[in-house]
């Protein structure tokens, strides 16, 4: 790739791409765990499709990262040969899949965040990122629609379905704060005018979520932000290592193996 950026900017673009790719890969892997286990066949297919979209997005983002890194690495190297402490994903994507309510609430929270982020990035001055964002946002909007419909249906459904959605919202809410924490690389790219300011994402996200949860008759928990919920992307839950151990086991056992 022709790269007109200096070393510092290139390094930060690379870091930022990793954080974008890691969020999507790890969540994609988590969602794939539903394959064969979803409550109904249609949802099994839906979740498998969403998972595929997320993993596809991560793979294309990693590809750009590898090009800018220019060390001859591939997207598979980034996915399968990095240790947990080198991942830059947020904690919400690492959490085990939980029950269907937990998965669907997490999908709503992340998909909407993904939508808003990609929308913003589709105006990036770093063209490869703008192109991929323009493409991925269409998929992501579809994911948001899917989880939104479920939240409303379950929130207004039976006593049990309502209870389960409320429990999931209560549990996941605190993890959403980290989505809006500006990373070092993000900050630098904004300063350099390579991506637009991401600050509006939080208020936009809250506005839409409030509408959806109100329609679903679900209460927004009262949680105050504290440092534990807004840690940098270098901290991870214990669940990430377990997930990676499983995801990376085959390529690590048989490096360079081809089908």
């Amino acid at each position, binding site marked *: 790739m022709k790269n007109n950026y200096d070393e510092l900017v290139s390094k930060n673009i690379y870091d930022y791409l990793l954080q974008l790719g890691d969020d999507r890969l790890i969540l994609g892997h988590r969602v794939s765990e539903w394959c064969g286990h979803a409550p109904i066949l249609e*949802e099994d*297919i*839906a979740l498998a*499709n969403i998972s*595929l*979209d997320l993993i*596809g*997005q991560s*793979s294309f983002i990693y590809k750009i990262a590898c090009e800018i890194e220019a060390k001859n690495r591939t997207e598979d190297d980034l996915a399968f040969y990095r240790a947990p402490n080198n991942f830059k994903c947020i904690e919400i994507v690492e959490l085990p899949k939980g029950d269907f309510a937990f998965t669907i609430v997490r999908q709503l929270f992340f998909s909407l965040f993904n939508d808003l982020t990609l929308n913003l990035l589709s105006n990036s001055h770093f063209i490869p990122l703008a192109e991929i964002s323009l493409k991925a946002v*269409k998929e992501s909007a579809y994911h948001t629609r899917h989880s939104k419909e479920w939240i409303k249906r379950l929130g207004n459904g039976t006593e049990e379905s309502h209870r389960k959605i409320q429990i999931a919202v209560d549990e996941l809410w605190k993890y959403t704060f980290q989505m809006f924490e500006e990373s070092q690389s993000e900050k630098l790219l904004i300063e350099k005018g390579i991506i637009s300011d991401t600050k509006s994402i939080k208020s936009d996200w809250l506005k839409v979520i409030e509408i959806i949860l109100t329609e679903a008759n679900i209460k927004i928990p009262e949680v105050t932000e504290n440092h534990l919920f807004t840690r940098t992307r270098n901290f991870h839950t214990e669940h990430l290592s377990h997930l990676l151990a499983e995801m990376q086991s085959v390529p690590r056992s048989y490096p360079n193996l081809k089908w």
Partner: protein
Amino acid sequence: MVNEKEIYLILENIPDPEIPNLNIVEMGMISKIEVTENEIVIFLRPTYLGCPALKIIEEDILSSFKNRKVKVEVSNSPIWSTDYFTAQTKEKLCQCQIAPPQNENRKIICPRCKSSDTIIKSNFGSTPCKALWWCNNCIEPFEYFKRH
């Protein structure tokens, strides 16, 4: 030196692995072709980023041009859209009983009986590009190619 037209003729023989009634040109997956003296570069754009068929299509293209130096570039610029489908492509989809993409808020017509008494069963289907619908007239499910 071969011309673009000849290359398209070869590409038109490559079926979409998931919907074999359509070829990859009809699917709008070829965005550009560059022919130089030494090389042919074919720009392939993915339908969905995670579509597992992409790799297979890349390999199919390479094996269709065995005797020539061909490179496949996967590119999302410009991005793929079902808006590129021609009337003929949509007709072919109907023939294999897949309802073609429709503009938002328009009725999805059953590809079998042409009834508009249809209802969505699932936003997702057997491949990333399709959704599952149900025809109240046929009392049968059918696939709908999502507008994207």
